[in-house]
């Protein structure tokens, strides 16, 4: 079993703290509308979803009206607030991917309204389309073919053809194993799920998505370990699993999400991929991040620190509900724009590094999950990850886990990060577990096989 990296990242694209800041990166991306993402300014990225309702033939007109209303009012507000540009994410709901005609219809509405806002207000905007990873609708998941695969690719293809600027996905390869890793706080299983299964699956999946992008005037943007590391964050926030465990899982996700870039992604990486700062350090590509302004979608311990090196700043998602001032997506747009204004004002004065450090200082000492997102920690662990690149994804993932554990331990010991009294015990336990992992992914899989629930998982779907 060999990694099929089209591109390899043997060294950091950004190695110095003085080059690592929000708004700019070595490989900025220019959109059709002329926004240069990573070219200096931080742009807002708005995502939104339907309120509680059924989606079917009978309700699609209503759904279309709701999306039309959301996009027109949000773009109008962006124009009123003189935003220099806006990224819109269309993260589909499962029904929209299952019935690609539904998803395509909404996608077209967004494309049309973005165009209309350009004409009406001179607003620059760009669209990211993120279909659902339908493959887990089969239980156990069927990863490389079958009706869900075909259906999902149909939506990717059609949206690319219709003029979407970016394609993304939150791919789920390995999740069927990782869910169990999370509730058992089992770091080995997490490493197997993301560092072996996830990487194998993303190589296959992203090779396909990149092909679709190449066939149309469309850019492959990136993936998110949302169902892995964000689920860990949510569970930690509820007190279900240790925060230190969730922090390590976050970093374990890095080599997995990096695979998208090895296969040709150019960014901006997905907003909910909090592993983004690592990807930016390693690849030099722009990233989208979300933090306090995404609180309507999920609470987090990383509300400010998440912004330190973002190139796009997102609200994650909000359903169309009426708040006192207006509809929630418009509120989200306004809040994002003010956040971006503040960061960009600092850049205009050459104070972006100082702002970055304040964003980091304000959170990093309060939670290990925030600590591992602080720029200097990110750079140190990223350096460990790329050192392991020649040895493949499993080695990189082990390096990520080890790096995170050592950094958090050192942070706790030196008082740089507060921790629960139980965290050190868990970190030690994780260290010991990682020491038992063999270097060969196949051997590792064989070792773990007895502990896997094989009713939820088909090894051959991963070429194992």
């Amino acid at each position, binding site marked *: 079993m060999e990694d099929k990296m089209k591109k390899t990242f043997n060294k950091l694209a950004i190695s110095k703290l003085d080059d690592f800041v929000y708004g700019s990166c070595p490989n900025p991306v220019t959109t059709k509308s002329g926004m240069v993402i990573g070219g200096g300014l931080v742009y807002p990225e708005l995502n939104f979803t339907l309120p509680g309702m059924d989606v079917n033939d009978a309700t699609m007109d209503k759904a279309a009206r709701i999306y039309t209303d959301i996009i027109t009012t949000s773009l109008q507000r962006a124009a009123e607030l003189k935003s220099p540009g806006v990224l819109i994410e269309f993260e589909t*709901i*499962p*029904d929209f991917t299952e019935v690609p005609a539904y998803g395509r219809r909404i996608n077209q509405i967004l494309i049309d309204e973005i165009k209309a806002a350009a004409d009406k207000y001179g607003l620059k905007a760009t669209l990211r389309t993120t279909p659902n990873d339908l493959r887990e609708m089969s239980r156990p998941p069927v990863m490389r073919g079958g009706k869900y695969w075909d259906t999902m690719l149909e939506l990717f293809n059609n949206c690319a053809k219709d003029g979407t600027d970016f394609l993304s996905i939150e791919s789920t390869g390995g999740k069927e194993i990782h869910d169990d890793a999370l*509730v058992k706080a089992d770091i080995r299983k997490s490493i197997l799920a993301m560092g072996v299964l996830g990487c194998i699956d993303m190589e296959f999946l992203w090779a396909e998505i990149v092909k679709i992008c190449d066939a149309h005037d469309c850019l492959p943007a990136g993936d998110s370990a949302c169902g892995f590391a964000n689920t860990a964050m949510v569970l930690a926030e509820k007190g279900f699993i240790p925060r230190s465990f969730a922090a390590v899982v976050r970093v374990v996700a890095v080599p997995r999400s990096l695979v998208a870039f090895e296969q040709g992604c150019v960014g901006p990486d997905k907003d909910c991929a909090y592993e983004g700062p690592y990807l930016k350090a390693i690849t030099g590509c722009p990233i989208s991040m979300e933090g306090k302004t995404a609180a309507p979608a999920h609470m987090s311990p990383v509300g400010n620190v998440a912004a330190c090196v973002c190139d796009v700043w997102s609200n994650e998602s909000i359903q169309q509900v009426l708040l006192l001032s207006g509809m929630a997506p418009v509120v989200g747009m306004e809040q994002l724009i003010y956040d971006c204004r503040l960061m960009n004002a600092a850049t205009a004065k050459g104070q972006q590094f100082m702002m970055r450090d304040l964003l980091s200082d304000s959170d990093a000492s309060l939670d290990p999950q925030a600590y591992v997102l602080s720029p200097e920690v990110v750079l140190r662990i990223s350096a460990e990850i790329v050192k392991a690149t020649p040895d493949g994804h499993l080695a990189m993932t082990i390096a990520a886990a080890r790096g995170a554990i050592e950094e958090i331990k050192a942070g706790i010991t030196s008082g740089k990060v507060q921790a629960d009294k139980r965290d050190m015990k868990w970190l030690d336990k994780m260290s010991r577990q990682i020491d038992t992992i063999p270097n060969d992914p196949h051997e590792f899989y064989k070792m773990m096989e007895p502990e896997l629930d094989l009713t939820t998982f088909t090894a051959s779907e991963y070429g194992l």
Partner: protein
Amino acid sequence: MATLEQVSQCVVDGDVAGVQGIVKQLIDAKTPPMDIINKGLVAGMNIVAPLFKSGEMFVPEVMESAETMNKGMELVKPLILDTDMTTKGKIMIGTVNGDLHDIGKNLLIMMIESSGYTVIDLGVDVKEETFVSAIKEHQPDIVGMSSMLTTTMMKMESTVAEMVKGGVRDKVKVIIGGAPISPDFVDEVKADGYAEDASTAVELCDRMMASI
């Protein structure tokens, strides 16, 4: 000499490896098997539940406790009559049609099961008809439905409607939960109760059972 307290402590500590040795000693010393269960194993889980609720125990620790309890049970069960084993009730759980989220559902099942209920897990993406036929087959006391998406929450309503059509609605209590679900939604979909999370779901089930 091993004690029932030690059994409880094994459960609290999640001492999967150690529990059977102690249970064996108690069996050899002719401790009544029902005492080992109720005053040892279950007593341990009764300490665990509030510690979880107050945030002093993590889920993986609770799972180890549950596993420890089960290990102990393996030795004691053959010594008692099937009819001696009581269950607090039978609960059927599923994520509604179109919804694939299962981690919350699985946590819920673990919590409910280790509090003494028998659980039937219907899995995720459970069609309306599947709920109805499963109710007919398993005759649960309570049916729990979860949904994590604004676009699948409405399936709770169609599922309850299907239960009415299938003539089983009044044979069960229906409880609901999930991120987009608010307490008010209970009335809207004609369910009987709402749980915010796994811990409160157990309390809700206890209240529901008391009212049956």
